[in-house]
């Protein structure tokens, strides 16, 4: 049984710059893979190659066993895409958006009327079926975008920052839907800037920086590998002493957030830190994906 998505050694140059540099990515049935990275890491370009929007300069992508470069149309039949921006068809109603989208797939989705009704019901869009999409709130627009990406019953779904700009309640509503889709067997590639979203939803994370994969695995593994076991939060007033202590260990400048320094440390380093600054007041917490982003964006 081939992986739903198997991408190997992807390379892409844009504007003379190597924006994706040897990326590998895989996704299985009933799995959510979070694709993370700071701005400019190559996430969107990678995603666009994976769903056939851009052609890679090198590397191979197989979707459901079909090589994208050889048979793009067949491979795309198994793919559903929810783009970051709303790209629904403003000339049609919510319901018509689903039927129009279905018309862009062959073989045509079977029993379309039932499928559309089922999606409207599931995404709580029944009462808006005859409305134009622009009259919907942000959360319902996202629901429509995801419903449209599913109308042809794809096996692999790409969600590009699906909850950006939504209020907490709407975000959680989308999370529930995404979780339900995974339970039904869909493979999902998710990009997000919300760390809690990536941690809660993703079964595996792939972290990109400067076009390369810098870590992959569960959230815990990725954080352990790239950040450390603990993060010490100390007042920025202690900056020079702490920076000198870090420099003595060959470490760079710590991240500074709202007047506090955030130092990712291993267990051993934390013990040394406690010995070095016995009278210092500081907080110790577990690492989060925010720390990872801060670390990656500070990296030279």
């Amino acid at each position, binding site marked *: 049984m081939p992986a739903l998505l198997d991408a190997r050694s992807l390379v892409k140059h844009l504007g003379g710059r190597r924006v994706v540099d040897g990326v590998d990515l895989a996704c299985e049935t009933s799995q959510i893979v979070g694709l993370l990275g700071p701005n400019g890491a190559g996430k969107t370009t990678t995603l666009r190659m994976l769903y056939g929007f851009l052609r890679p300069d090198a590397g191979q992508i197989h979707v459901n066993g079909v090589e994208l470069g050889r048979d793009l149309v067949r491979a*795309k039949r198994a793919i559903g895409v929810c783009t970051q921006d709303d*790209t*629904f068809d403003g000339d049609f109603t919510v319901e018509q958006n689903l039927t129009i989208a279905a*018309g862009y797939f062959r073989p045509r989705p079977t029993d379309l009327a039932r499928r559309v009704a089922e999606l409207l019901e599931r995404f709580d869009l029944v009462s808006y079926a005859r409305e134009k999409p622009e009259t919907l709130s942000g959360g319902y627009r996202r629901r429509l975008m995801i419903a449209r990406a599913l109308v042809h019953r794809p096996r692999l779904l790409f969600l590009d920052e699906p909850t950006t700009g939504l209020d907490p309640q709407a975000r959680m509503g989308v999370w529930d839907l995404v979780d339900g889709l995974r339970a039904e067997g869909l493979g999902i590639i998710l990009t997000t800037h919300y760390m809690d979203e990536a941690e809660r939803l993703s079964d595996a994370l792939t972290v990109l920086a400067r076009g390369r994969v810098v870590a992959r695995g569960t959230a815990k593994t990725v954080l352990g590998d790239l950040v450390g076991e603990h993060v010490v939060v100390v007042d920025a007033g202690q900056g020079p002493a702490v920076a000198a202590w870090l420099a003595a260990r060959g470490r760079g400048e710590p991240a500074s957030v709202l007047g506090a320094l955030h130092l990712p440390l291993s267990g051993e380093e934390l013990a040394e830190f406690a010995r070095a600054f016995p009278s210092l007041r500081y907080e110790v917490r577990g690492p989060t994906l925010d720390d990872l982003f801060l670390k990656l964006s500070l990296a030279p």
Partner: protein
Amino acid sequence: MSWLAAALEWQSRAVVGRHLRVYIRNWHTAFLPPAVEPVTMLVAFGVGLGGYVATLTWQGRPIEYMTYVAPGLLAYATFMTAIFQSLFAAFIRMRYQRTWEGQLTTQVELTHVVWGEVLWAGLLATMYVVIVSAVLIVIQWAGLLALDLRWLPVLWPITFVAGCGFAALGLCFTAIVPTIDHMNLPVFLLVLPMGLLSSTYFPLEHPVLVALNAGNPLYHLAQVFRGILIGGPVAGHLAGVVGLSALMLAILVPLDLRLLRRRVLGD
């Protein structure tokens, strides 16, 4: 030549089908301009200007100005409909409505989107010309025209081919203008001069214009329509319309694709 084969693929038809569905839904507003425009133009140019010109000589014989201008009106409608559809309507779909981006997340590729726009502009121009033809029949019935209306349906496939060629030209500007305000440049520097200097509304016999019009598909289109509806040479101008439209499609569609690939896909 896969870009050429894409014109016949189901995805291009699906894009055309989408545009047709929008058109049919808005039929009451979509039907009105092509029905009213020829009446306005015939009143302005035919009755107004025709009052001063009365008759002119075409192919060595005198004809009423109204009869001269009516086939030109059909050619002008073909050109304006196709070019405005591929300039403004396509730009709005690409830039503001983001319809193209939505289509590109499906099995539709950019080549199909471009062919869909070209074929739709050709089809819309044909539908407009059919409506204008109906208006001309009514005007002729009122005794104001002397056209050979039996041949009107022959005009429609020619309209489609020419409309597709004009649309390929319009899409080039859609691909390169930064904002919709910049559409003024192609409209005032190319579209209006071409529309008016192609012997559509009045014969232009200045040697420079005659030389320029040899490579102008709109001029040949107006002349073919006159040849068919009034009686005159058709073959040379028909070859001009078909040949120049094919040339425009062969050169401009690949260029459109190249420019739009950069603009829409960032590739």
